[in-house]
């Protein structure tokens, strides 16, 4: 068994090293592109070492302070860190695209018992950064306790730490295997991915949305009133949910380990028994279920997906006013890619969810504050939503060629000029952004119906000018920094190249500045929304003409990078 585990550890190490050392680059620009992509992980790796050292010190210091102390601030910090690690054990396998450790088909061919295979696969979780960083903390605490003279406490803390690690490995394995079972069916997998893609940003937005501008005294009074309501048994549904959530927090594996450590540090070894037993049972349960899930994966590793049919059953020519057939065909293909991939669908749906959340709050509170941006009224909310629509397409727009994968080869083999291809792609991306934006505008106008009509109309040229001014840059960045992506994955696996994403975001914001500035000047200073509409429309025309001209320049860049693009998509 040891040899098997060693072989797996070596294999994972070589895969990591080969991904850094052997990039298969073919020219300087691609080398730069890959180097930039790897800077982030390398910096993270570099930061891990001092972080681990600091965490070990924190653990040791906490362990030293712990015996007999009523309230140890660093201990609370450690509890939060371990709770976060527990959370990442669930989120990590969902978000990270590198869940190769569950590639069951490959494993089936190995002459290794299922039990050993499970251990080899599950132990891969120990290389996850959140678990790697938990180890020094869990080691530091017993060392601190031992230095303080609480040797029994140190021994129990070692046990608690070990049990916690094993439990978290089980939790991580369970999530990964369950997820693989779930996504084995491509369509079900896509649905899950889409839900995660949509739900995660929404959860991220919640704190900002729920943040109120109440004073500390007001918040304290609210807390007191809430406590009284709880005492009377008169709490609201939200408060009850919060109370249940707080109780659930206490049975987290990290909390069980913390409680065991604290009890034993205080000399109450018996008090440590219950949480330790709870931790052991939890760990066993996680590993038991994960083992069953792993067994099911091995028993039927193939995809269970049925063939999916699209609605198209006849050859209907692509048509978009103002575009040639070839350009329209490219635009249609781009649009279909967005409609038929989880990442693409998320670009269409996420802005609508953000809009709906803000709209609901705007209706309730009449004013929403997000990062000091006061969104009063439907007009501002709609402008904000349109900006979100434009920003949400960046993963596609900034990697518009590589997202096609093998389809790009078909396009490159087709009798279509580079300029036509670029324009088709730009229109396709524009349509992807425009669809949710149009819905936002229509719904907001129907619901709020405030402000001058000229400003509502002004949103259209503002939106078009922003997109038109940024589209050539997006095409150029896509050609220079292509990235092979999987649009079924979420997070980094389907993102555009990091540098392209950064520059593209700045370009998009800069492209929106003229329209925003003109609108503000003519409404706030001159006081004429109509003039704002006129000038933004003029700017829109200039942006469209300029964009057309710029595409000729970008076509030159694309021509020089088309070979590299073809090679990247075949990786």
């Amino acid at each position, binding site marked *: 068994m040891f040899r098997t585990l060693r072989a797996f550890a070596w294999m994972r190490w070589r895969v990591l090293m080969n991904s850094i050392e052997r990039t298969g680059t073919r020219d300087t620009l691609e080398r730069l592109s890959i180097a930039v992509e790897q800077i982030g992980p390398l910096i993270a790796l570099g930061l891990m070492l001092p972080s681990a050292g600091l965490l070990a010190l924190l653990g040791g210091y906490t362990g030293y302070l712990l015996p007999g102390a009523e309230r140890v601030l660093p201990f609370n910090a450690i509890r939060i860190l371990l709770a976060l690690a527990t959370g990442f054990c669930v989120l990590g396998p969902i978000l990270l695209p590198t869940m190769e450790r569950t590639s069951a088909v490959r494993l089936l061919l190995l002459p290794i018992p299922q039990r050993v295979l499970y251990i080899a696969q599950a132990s891969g979780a120990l290389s996850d950064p959140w678990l790697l960083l938990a180890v020094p903390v869990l080691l530091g605490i017993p060392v601190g306790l031992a230095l303080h003279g609480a040797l029994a406490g140190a021994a129990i803390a070692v046990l608690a730490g070990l049990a916690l690690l094993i439990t978290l490995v089980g939790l991580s394995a369970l999530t990964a295997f369950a997820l693989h079972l779930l996504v084995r069916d491509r369509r079900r997998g896509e649905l899950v991915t889409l839900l995660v893609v949509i739900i995660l940003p929404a959860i991220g937005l919640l704190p900002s949305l729920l943040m109120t501008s109440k004073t500390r005294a007001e918040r304290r009074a609210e807390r007191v009133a809430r406590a009284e309501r709880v005492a009377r048994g008169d709490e609201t549904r939200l408060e009850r949910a919060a109370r249940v959530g707080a109780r659930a927090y206490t049975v987290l594996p990290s909390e069980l380990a913390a409680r065991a450590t604290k009890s034993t540090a205080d000399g109450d070894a018996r008090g440590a028994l219950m949480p330790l037993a709870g931790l052991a049972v939890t760990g066993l349960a996680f590993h038991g279920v994960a083992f069953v899930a792993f067994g099911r994966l091995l028993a039927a590793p193939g995809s269970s997906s049925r063939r999916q049919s699209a609605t198209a059953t006849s*050859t209907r020519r692509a048509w978009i006013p103002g575009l040639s057939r070839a350009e329209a*065909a490219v635009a249609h293909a781009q649009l279909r890619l967005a409609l038929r991939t989880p990442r693409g669908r998320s670009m269409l749906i996420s802005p609508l969810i953000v809009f709906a959340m803000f709209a609901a709050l705007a209706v309730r509170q009449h004013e929403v504050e997000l990062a000091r941006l006061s969104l009063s009224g439907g007009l501002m909310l709609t402008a904000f939503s349109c900006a979100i629509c434009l920003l949400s397409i960046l993963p596609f727009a900034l990697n518009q060629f590589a997202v096609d994968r093998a*389809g790009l080869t*078909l396009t490159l083999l*087709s009798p279509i000029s580079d300029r036509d291809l670029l324009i088709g792609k730009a229109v396709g991306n524009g349509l992807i952004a425009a669809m949710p934006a149009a819905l936002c505008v229509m719904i907001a106008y129907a619901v709020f119906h405030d402000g001058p009509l000229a400003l509502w109309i002004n949103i259209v040229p503002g939106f078009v000018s922003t997109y038109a001014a940024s589209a050539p840059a997006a095409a150029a960045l896509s050609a220079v920094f292509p990235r092979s992506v999987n649009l079924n994955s979420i997070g980094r696996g389907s993102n555009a190249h990091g540098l392209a994403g950064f520059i593209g975001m700045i370009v998009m914001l800069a492209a929106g500045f003229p329209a925003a500035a003109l609108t503000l000047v003519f409404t706030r200073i001159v006081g004429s929304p109509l003039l704002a509409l006129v000038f933004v429309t003029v700017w829109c025309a200039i942006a469209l003409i300029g964009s057309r001209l710029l595409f000729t320049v970008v076509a030159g860049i694309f021509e020089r990078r088309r070979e590299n693009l073809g090679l990247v998509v075949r990786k």
Partner: protein
Amino acid sequence: MDLAVETHGLTRTFGTLRAVDGIDLAVPAGSFFGFLGPNGAGKSTTIKCLTGLLRPSSGTMRILGLDPMTDPVAVKRRIGVVPEDLALFDRLTALETLTFVADVHGLDESVARERANDLLDLMDLKAAGATLVTDFSHGMRKKLSLAAALLPAPRLLFLDEPFEGIDAVASRQIKELLHSFVERGGTIFLTSHILEIVERLSTHIGVIANGRLVAQGPIEELRTGAAGAHSLEELFIKLVGGDTRAPVALDWI
């Protein structure tokens, strides 16, 4: 003699590797040209250069009398390609893929519909017309890629391993189709590892080894030229130097 494909000193390097090393190809128009070579010999790289996916490091090319470097769109209007990676959009259906090809080639809607139906029928893909390519098996993808290459009725077809992964029934139909394509004046440039297929279909062959063209010409001429070569396999092994390698004996097997 009219040449469908003509290259002079065609070279393509990747860093220090000369994947294609100064080859002079002459593929007669109306021929069925089998392009053979061991793994890594440079076959796919040559096709990629000829079809414009890769830019040659040096040398000249003419495809159907046109220079693909200076007039790539005109060349692409006249050729059909089944490349190594099959070149299909994962998230289009079979029918949408063919519609896309028809659109970029500017075919009339009625012509496109008729041809798409014929091709899907021939490839036994009619029932899968509305299925996403991502749900296709490898063989189905290959057939669709071939259908996409044939749809605009090109004068020259580049086929990179077209029979790999295709069932016997479809394979036979495709062979017949390719035969009739050549009989009507079309030219086929085909690479395949299945020498029996090349022997049965090709009128001409070219053999590449280590990036260099070691032989080309009518298949019968080459066979009679190589002393004692009774089959294409024998000829091929002689040309690529496979007969000089000592047989390997793995005693531990």
